[in-house]
Each structure stands twice: as structure tokens, then as C-alpha cells.
């Protein structure tokens, strides 16, 4: 699902950008407000720490303001902004050597195939799943345990719903790399979540029915 802004929203954004470029800094918050959450999420996904993510989000947005003159209307403002946030977050991560524990998948060769390990029957997710704090924590923990390069791609594509091209642009990697990393990230997350969610909290019904297709 790719959420695309309506054309008139894009035009309005361009008008806003022009006005700011022509000396109306007061309009800047209006321009970035729709994306401030996304900027935070992108930073958080890379840094895995709320205080760092917030500071990086602020820095990224101010950097966008300082460099607004360099923004070209042919790319989308949101993509450009996320790109800045990703770069800022990566710089911060490099500086702090945040990867204390080597996350899953970092050592594996990107070109090698990733075979799923788990075949638990995980059919449906109740809509209230995310309201359960243990489910939210499990999702965040699992995401945090992925290697940085997989996490970045997954967050931009599957959480922020950027297109493959936009993810490739934002991260400065090829379209093929985006797809390879995305596949692996999705499968790894499935491996991490399926056994715990499927057998634990809310799929008992299917077990009771004796529905175990992997046997």
C-alpha cells in the first residue's frame, strides 16, 4: 500500500516551499508538520533509542530548513526530508558505535538465500493485537534485533510505505539491493514473530482444531 498525496496537496506543498524560500520562515512548521512523526520513526528505527531519535529528528528538520534552497521540486518533499533524517541518524549511529551486540543477519551475505526456519501456523491477527503492550514490545524488540541495513529498508518500505524507488533514493542503494534486503527483513521478522504470536497469545483456536499444516 503506497500512500500518495493528492496532486493538489503536492502543489500546495510546493507553494509553501516557495514562500519559505522567499523569506517566510514562519511557514516552515506548517510544511513539516505532516511528516514530523515519520521523521521520528525513521530516526528511532535506526537508533533504537527515544531520546536520540527525538534529537536527531529535530536536527534533521532544522537541516532541511537550512538547506531548503537546495530542494528540487522534482522529488517529493517527504522523501527528501526522510533522506536527511536517515543520514543524520546513520551519522549518529556511526559516531556512537551503537551496534553493541551484533544483530541478526548482519553477518550473513546479502546475496545468499534466506530460508525460513519457522512454519508455525500463523493465520490471523485480531485487530486489537496492537493494543496489547506485550505485542507492541515484541514487535519493537524483533525489529531492533535486525541488522541496521535490513531495519532501514524495512522501516522505510513497510512502515513508512515509501516506494522501492524512494527507498533506494533515500538510502543511496540500488533498487535490487532494496528488494533483497526487504525480502530478508520480512522473512527474518516472520521467523522471529510467528512462533511466539502463533503459539502463544491468540491462535489457540486453530491449534485446538488440530490445524497443523506443517506436519
Amino acid at each position, binding site marked *: *500500500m503506497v500512500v500518495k498525496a493528492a496532486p493538489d496537496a503536492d502543489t500546495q506543498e510546493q507553494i509553501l516551499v516557495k514562500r519559505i524560500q522567499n523569506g517566510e*520562515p*514562519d511557514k*516552515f*512548521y506548517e510544511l*513539516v*508538520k505532516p511528516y*514530523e*512523526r515519520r521523521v*521520528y*520513526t525513521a530516526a*528511532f528505527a535506526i537508533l533504537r533509542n*527515544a*531520546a536520540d531519535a*527525538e*534529537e536527531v*529528528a*529535530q*536536527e534533521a*528538520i*532544522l537541516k532541511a*530548513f537550512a538547506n531548503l534552497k537546495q530542494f528540487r521540486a522534482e522529488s517529493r518533499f517527504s522523501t527528501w526530508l526522510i533522506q536527511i533524517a536517515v543520514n543524520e541518524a546513520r*551519522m*549518529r549511529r556511526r*559516531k*556512537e558505535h551503537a551496534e553493541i551486540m551484533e544483530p541478526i543477519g548482519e553477518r550473513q551475505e546479502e546475496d545468499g*538465500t*534466506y*530460508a*525460513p526456519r519457522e*512454519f*508455525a*501456523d*500463523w*493465520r*490471523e*491477527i485480531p485487530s486489537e*493485537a*496492537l*493494543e496489547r503492550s506485550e*505485542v*507492541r514490545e515484541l*514487535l*519493537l524488540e524483533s*525489529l531492533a534485533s535486525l541488522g541496521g541495513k535490513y531495519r532501514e529498508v524495512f522501516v522505510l518500505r*513497510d*512502515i513508512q*510505505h515509501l516506494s*522501492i524507488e524512494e527507498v533506494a533514493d533515500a538510502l543511496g542503494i540500488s533498487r535490487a539491493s532494496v*528488494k533483497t534486503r526487504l*525480502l530478508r527483513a*520480512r*522473512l527474518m*521478522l*516472520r521467523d522471529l*514473530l*510467528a512462533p511466539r*504470536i502463533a503459539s502463544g497469545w491468540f491462535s489457540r483456536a486453530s491449534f485446538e482444531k488440530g490445524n497443523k*499444516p*506443517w506436519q
Partner: protein
Amino acid sequence: MAVTQCEQVWEQISDYIDGELDAGLRVTLDEHIQGCPRCTSVLQGTRNVLALYGDERLFKVPTGYSWRMRRRIASDTQVRRRVVIGWLVATAAVALASASVALADRLGSAKESSKSVMARLGHVPADLEVVVTDHAKLFHIKECPFVRETDHPQAMTAAEAERQGYVPCVRCLGQYVGELAARLVNRKAFAGFLATR
């Protein structure tokens, strides 16, 4: 693909979900998945992963995030304007301070120099001990949660930090970085000043 292997399906599962496969390959995969519980499980699970993570309720921004963002933007994007207004405030303050000092002198009870009044009228007290870090143009108090040892904090006075172009961190120095209007009509400082006369 005459006989489709599970491994071949797994390699394509992401493109399959994203609708990036051509029609022929899609049909081949459909046929395999229908008869293969393992691949059905992988497909279902992967779709569940996307549904769970695609929900925007998953990531919560910290309380007050928007407010702090707005403040930070306001303080940083209006620096130029503030310099002009700041100059006006300073001029007005000096004028008022000298007038008051003159008045106070006349009353024979001048307790404060116009300089200390200026410090109170400004944003952060000029002689406050602050730290700056090498990755942001911000200055903080030493205990600010945003400052860590790994940031190589460097101590200096607020005046020096401002001179070097740093701006106060809203988290730890928020009390000083009030709205422009609040500083323009810093009633407390004036009232306090006048009360000493």
C-alpha cells in the same frame, strides 16, 4: 519453472506480495502455494508481519514531541528576526535601565548595575555554566538528558556559547527560552528591578 521448489517461492515471496511479479510467474507460484502448507505458512506469516508493522499505532512519539519540535523550529528559524528585536529590546532596556539608575541615583539607593539587569533581561544568564557538544549547535546544562559523555561535552559560559552561535536546548533551558513576547515584556525582571529602587 517446471517443478517449483519451495526455495524458489521464498525467494519471490516479497515481490509476490508487492505485486511485482509478471502474470505467468504469479500463476506458477499460486499453484505451488495452494498445495504447499509450508509456503502457505510463509506467505501468511509475511503478510501478518506487514499488517502489524504497517499499523501506525505501533510507533508512539514521546509525549510533548510535537511541542518541542515546534519550539525548536521557532527558536532556530527566527534567529535573524530575533537579532533585530533583541537589539531593540536591549536598546530599550539600556534606556530604561539608565533612566532608572539615574532615578535611583537621585534617590541614593542604586543597588544593581545596568549590566546585571541586562543579564536578567536576556535569555539565559550570561555567566551560567553550560556545555556544548560537537554534533549540534545547542548548549545545555551539564545535567541535561540529551548530553552524554560520548558527545564530548565542552564547558563554557552561556555568553560564550551564544557568541559561538549555539542556541539553548529547549529541554533543559526551556525556562529561559520563553516566547519572544514574554521576553519583550519581562515584567518580572522589570518589576524586580524597579522594586529595588
